[in-house]
């Protein structure tokens, strides 16, 4: 399902293409072995360079095909009836949204340039790999994990498919496939509903010091991956150069995916819905918990102080 829409025309006429072409090449293709001990890896996505060719989409599918579900049918009956069966196994070629078999898709966004020209931007969309990912931190079974290099991924051997990760993700990224995974060996009728899938940033390739498939396959060098400090600097420089805008620096407390766009993100017009994430500002969803952690540190001290105070008052009265 390759998109028939091409953005080459826009690129040819865009007012920043030349500058970003120079800025975009560098760390990404030359990265080789990653230093993942000192800093997380961050991906910079330069929207102005993307032509919507979907090479990244198909490269992702190919590199991760061995991780996709192969559910056995018929699926076990689940109770109560409201539990949804989510089966994408017969629609594995869908590429216009995120699915358990499509972890990266191209989102089309209408925009108007400062010059008043109406353009269509194409934006590679996938997991943002949050710095403090709620999908990982709030998974009740520890099925999702975050690695030191900043990527987050879901262990398909452990995931029960409860879809909590989808509900707590500000972008609703993880997608469920019913009829596969550990729940089948437990209580398939009463608990669980498959496995959740999302971009794992080609961890198997990163481990070998290789680029994620989507970055490797891109003919336009849209994506750059590298150490957080380097990529953040590069994103800011790029935004300054094109008088552009950055998404991902502060969203959900900061993500390890940073988009740079020539058009403000709040002016982009695109389809959202299931499997089609937005690009709105996102507050830090884990901040309330982190603030309450301080209260938890203080509470036992306050409790102990109250008991000691009470004891001394009683001792004084007895004396």
């Amino acid at each position, binding site marked *: 399902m390759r998109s028939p829409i091409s953005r080459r025309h826009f690129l040819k006429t865009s007012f920043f293409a030349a500058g970003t072409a120079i800025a975009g090449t560098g760390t990404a293709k030359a990265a080789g072995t990653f230093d993942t001990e000192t800093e997380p890896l961050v991906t910079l996505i330069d929207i102005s360079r993307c032509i919507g060719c979907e090479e990244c989409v198909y490269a992702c599918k190919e590199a991760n095909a061995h991780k996709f579900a192969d559910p056995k049918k018929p699926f076990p009956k689940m109770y*109560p009836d*409201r*539990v949804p069966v989510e089966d994408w196994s017969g629609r594995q070629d869908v590429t216009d949204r995120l699915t358990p078999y499509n972890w990266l898709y191209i989102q089309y966004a209408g925009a108007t340039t400062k010059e008043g020209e109406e353009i269509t931007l194409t934006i590679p969309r996938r997991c943002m790999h949050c*710095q*403090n990912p709620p999908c990982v*931190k*709030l998974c*009740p*079974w*520890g099925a999702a*994990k*975050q*690695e*030191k290099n900043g990527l987050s991924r879901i*262990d398909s051997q*452990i995931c029960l498919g*409860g*879809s*909590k990760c989808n*509900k*707590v993700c500000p972008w609703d990224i993880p997608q469920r496939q019913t009829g596969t995974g550990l729940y089948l060996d437990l209580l398939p009728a009463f*608990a669980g509903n498959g496995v959740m899938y999302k971009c794992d940033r080609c961890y198997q390739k990163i481990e070998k010091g290789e680029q994620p498939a989507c970055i490797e396959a891109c003919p336009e060098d849209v994506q750059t991956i590298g150490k957080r400090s380097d990529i953040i600097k590069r994103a800011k420089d790029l935004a300054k150069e094109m008088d552009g805008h950055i998404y991902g620096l502060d969203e959900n*407390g900061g993500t390890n995916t940073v988009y740079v766009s020539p058009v403000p993100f709040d002016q982009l017009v695109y389809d959202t819905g299931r499997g089609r994430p937005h690009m709105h500002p996102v507050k830090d*969803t*884990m901040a*309330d*918990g*982190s603030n*309450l*952690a301080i*209260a*938890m540190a*203080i*509470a*036992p*001290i*306050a*409790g*102990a102080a*109250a*008991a*000691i105070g*009470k*004891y001394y008052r009683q*001792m004084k009265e*007895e004396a």
Partner: protein
Amino acid sequence: MNYHFKSRRMVYGLTLFFIALSGFAQMPIFKRYYIADIPGLGWLAQFYVTHVIHYALAALLMGFCAYVAFDYFLHRRNSGPKKSQITENTKMTISAWVKAGALSGLIVTGIFMVVKNLSGIYFYHGVVIGLDLLHLVFAMVLLGATAYTWVRGRSWIF
């Protein structure tokens, strides 16, 4: 049973009930089984709400446990002329030791889980799974022991 003791029991009971409820709500079960559809219980299906409630009640429970533990040991060990009498009257029952052990386990695993949830903290995956399961096991032990002592009318102390 004096007023002070009754208030302590009520605070502990309410905290335990709601912290257990918000704890189980971390699993996606209340919506599936229509419990969140009951008027007034919709919040049980809102994961960030139950997360914050669970944390806030955990702070309250830890403060309460610290207060009771210090109160207990200070009075038991340093009671002046009444020491022998108080010591005899404040021996913990077996079920109390079970509950205290489960509470301690919950608090310790809970602390690690809170730390794990902070930004920039990475735990080994097996440790995270172990903490999740241990926390659940300690909760079940505590709830089981609490139900048993409630039905049998057993107290924390003789």
